[in-house]
């Protein structure tokens, strides 16, 4: 099957969902979300039968679009994240409804289920983009749909504040991106990454500063997207204010796509040794700063959403460490594995959080007090997510860190590895704060009723738990896929 059909079918699915929304009366709109989940599952299944050779290499789109392993894997991650988003959104629907001005039942929910499908299409294009124009267009599709999603709770001030912040900083980073692309185009005469790679070795030395300037601007723009320090300051407020499923989506799929673009741009530029000598330290510094800032700032947090926001910055740091170690033989695999593992465990944490917050009415860590006795299964899911995020062996999170550190060790980034170890130990502290609340502390209201979990959410939580342990113990199938 030609890989191009993947995105096309996702877009068609989105349009069908919009149509269904337009022609349906008052109601819960659960059917639309169900349609989305089924459709995306079908596309996810189709990704395993894609044949890149079916693409016509001479066709015009082949200049923009690559269907390599990296792209296919990221498409799968995006689809998975969107499916989990829809499951979360179903659990989260009451909050969305309560925060929308319309009185009609279900008004606005249909779009809440549909917009992410378009985001997913954008993410999938981003995964395949190998031309700056394509990168820009798909990135904007993703970012603009996130502008809407982040500020979706119109009656909630935090959500609106988050939306404004995200809009302003997103626009700023877009400006950096375009400006950077202009400089690179001005020097090389190309926007196409493979052609830039061909042109770079032939260039005059005198243009190197201009090229570096352009690359630096692109790096800043992508730094905003992946929340690398010092471009991370929007993250905590936006993550805390946005609807929780959107936060989960933003911190996993959007970040993963940012990393893939970064990886592609980076690989284009590091082939020239002179550039490499200047670019690598830059990324290494970013990685160190991001690890330290994210993990240290997470320590004092008492709101779980905010804590996960800072921890996501920390994880971006480990991923950047992988990018900085790109010369190591397994670095690409290590980064992709980490992205996959990070997606699973973060989604699991957010999903449990949404279910619990629905019952307790808040997402502070103290709202999890006594969960170990009140809802042992949910507590176990959260425990597993936290242990995996902290990097305990036999979970996917540990292997991710192990692979990254191993690559960094090979590339002799000893200082960064040492920083990584210190920050991982700090991570233990704040992730265990959640475990402590769940198992040590008494529930605020001992007589509280049982927490109800939707059937779909139950299945998803169980699947995510199983996947995290499975990848932590037996990663061979996934790694074979990435090879």
């Amino acid at each position, binding site marked *: 099957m030609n890989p191009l059909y993947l995105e096309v079918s996702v877009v068609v699915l989105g349009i069908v969902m919009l149509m269904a929304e337009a022609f349906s009366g008052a109601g819960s709109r659960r059917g639309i979300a169900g349609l989305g989940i089924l459709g995306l599952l079908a596309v996810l299944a189709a990704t395993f039968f894609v044949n890149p050779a079916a693409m016509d290499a001479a066709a015009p789109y082949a200049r923009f679009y690559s269907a390599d392993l990296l792209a296919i894997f990221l498409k799968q991650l995006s689809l998975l994240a969107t499916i989990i988003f829809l499951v979360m959104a179903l659990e989260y629907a009451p909050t969305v409804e309560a925060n929308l001005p319309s009185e009609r039942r279900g008004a606005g929910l249909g779009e809440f289920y549909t917009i992410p499908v378009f985001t997913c299409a954008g993410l999938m294009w981003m995964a395949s983009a190998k031309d700056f124009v394509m990168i820009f267009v798909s990135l904007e599709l993703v970012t603009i749909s996130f502008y809407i999603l982040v500020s979706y709770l119109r009656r909630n001030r935090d959500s609106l504040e988050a939306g404004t912040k995200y809009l302003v900083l997103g626009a700023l980073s877009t400006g950096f991106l375009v400006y950077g692309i202009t400089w690179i185009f001005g020097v090389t005469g190309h926007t196409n990454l493979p052609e830039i790679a061909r042109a770079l070795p032939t260039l005059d030395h005198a243009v190197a500063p201009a090229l570096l300037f352009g690359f630096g601007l692109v790096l800043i723009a992508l730094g905003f997207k992946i929340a690398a320090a010092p471009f991370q300051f929007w993250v905590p407020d936006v993550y805390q204010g946005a609807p929780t499923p959107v936060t989960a989506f933003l911190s996993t799929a959007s970040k993963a796509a940012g990393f893939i673009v970064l990886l592609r741009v980076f690989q284009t530029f590091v082939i020239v040794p002179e550039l490499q000598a200047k670019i690598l330290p830059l990324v290494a510094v970013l990685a160190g700063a991001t690890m330290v800032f994210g993990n240290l700032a997470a320590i004092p947090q008492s709101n779980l959403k905010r804590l996960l926001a800072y921890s996501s910055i920390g994880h971006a740091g480990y991923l950047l460490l992988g990018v900085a170690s790109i010369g190591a033989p397994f670095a690409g695999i290590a980064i992709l594995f980490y992205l996959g593992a990070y997606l699973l465990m973060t989604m699991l944490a957010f999903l449990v959080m949404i279910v619990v917050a629905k019952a307790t009415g808040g997402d502070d860590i103290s709202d999890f007090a006594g969960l170990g006795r009140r809802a042992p299964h949910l507590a176990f899911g959260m425990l597993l997510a936290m*242990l995996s995020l902290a990097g305990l*062996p036999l979970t996917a999170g540990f292997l991710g860190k192990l692979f990254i550190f191993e690559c960094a060790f090979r590339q002799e980034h000893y200082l960064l590895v*040492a920083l990584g*170890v210190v920050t991982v130990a700090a991570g*233990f*502290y704040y992730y*265990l704060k959640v475990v402590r609340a769940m198992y040590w502390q008494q529930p605020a209201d001992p007589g509280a009723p049982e927490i109800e979990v939707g059937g779909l959410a139950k299945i998803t939580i169980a699947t995510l738990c199983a996947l995290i342990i499975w990848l932590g113990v*037996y990663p061979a199938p996934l790694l074979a896929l990435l090879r």
Partner: protein
Amino acid sequence: MTPSPLLSLILIPLVTALFCMAGAAPRRISIFGAGANLLLSLYLLASYNQAIGGFQFVSENPLFAAYGISFSLGVDGLSLVLLLLCTLVTFAAVWVTPKIEKQEGMFYACLLFISVGAVGAFASIDLFFFYAFHELALIPTFLLIGIWGSGERQRIAWKVTIYLAFGSFILLLGLIGLWLAAPDNLRSLDIRMLQQLGYAGLLSPGPAVYLLLLFGFGILIALFPFHTWAPEAYASAPAPAAMLHAGVLKKFGLYGLLRLAVPIFPAEIQQFAHLLLVLLLGNILYVGFVTIAQKRLNLMLGYSSVMHMGYAFLGLAALNQLGLGGMALMMFAHGLTIAALFALCGEIARRTGTLEFSELGGMAGITPKLGLLFGFAAMASVGLPGFSSFAGEILIFFGAFARGATGCFNWFQTATALALWGVVISAVYMLRAYRRVFWGGRGTAVKDEIADISAGSRWAIILLLAALLVTGFRPGLLLEYLNPVFAYLPQ
């Protein structure tokens, strides 16, 4: 995958723990599971073929070829002895566990998970699982201290967990370095392979990796000056948890050093021997004096356990058959001794509600059996001849002293002479503790109506002491397993 009896050794406590969590009668099935595991480890010890030696009962199950991660199990004499220690202490720990008021199932499950972690680490011959199983025990420790501990349990649980996690990650770096040190085509996580490469001189990880391993393992063992987590943790943890952690889990670090540092880093051990000697004297003398100054029985036992680790390091520094054999024997003996002492300490605390020496005293008249058992355990801790602690320590001293036989009174002999004073120090604090708890005037917390130790707990502790006595009178029983492991080294 080839089946191996070792897999059952891991699965039995794991399945038992899961049953406990699911709500089965926890005490009964835990005792049953731990007992079955003890019998199984005895059976393995008996059916290990000493004529062949090396790793036996091997099963390999490659999981991930590119990194060479494989779920491989196998044991040699050293790991068998430690497995016996682990199953013995686990059995005793679940046996002496009193009635738990809150979440009894979780309590037993946590205990058994520590056991799973220790058994898995001792039985793994793949570096990845060797490390992973030990980490697995971190979380139950955190929960055991945090939920069921005493005193400032929450602060202490944090401190311990962060300390151990940090040590583990330093260790992880060392292990990565070790793995990368092998030539590309021979890279392996298999401990047997690494040892072969080490003997053949094909591994040259350099001193940095050795120091990472030494301090990574050292933090887990409570090597001076990284020992401050241990006494507090053992004082605060519920008695069965302290038994398992101090008795078994802490031996993981020493086991790791014997398994990896000795065959692969003999040159580095000698290069940094002076550093190690200074640190271990810190363990023996400095921590020894701190132990004497303690005013509470549980803290004193915690410090004494840290102090005894100094002897083990002395055996490592000696790096000869005598010293390392003695070190392994002493690990076994110390595990049993400290487990018995913590169990008795828990019994005392439950009867009097306090462990302050100032409020205790004269208990021997009311609880003679408890007093007698404590006396035995205290003597074993001091290293009285007849207990295997004596055999282990004397071998270590001989080994360390022999290292310096060629020179005049050199570093090793000086250190040995100083370390010998540790025996005096431990006699001082142990006998003092014995006197202040069981003899002298009646303490304010000691009431007439307190009951003597129950038959069940008594037999659990007698089992531990009996094992100490048997191996003390016939250390050869264990040494015939241990010595072949180090046979390639100088006498």
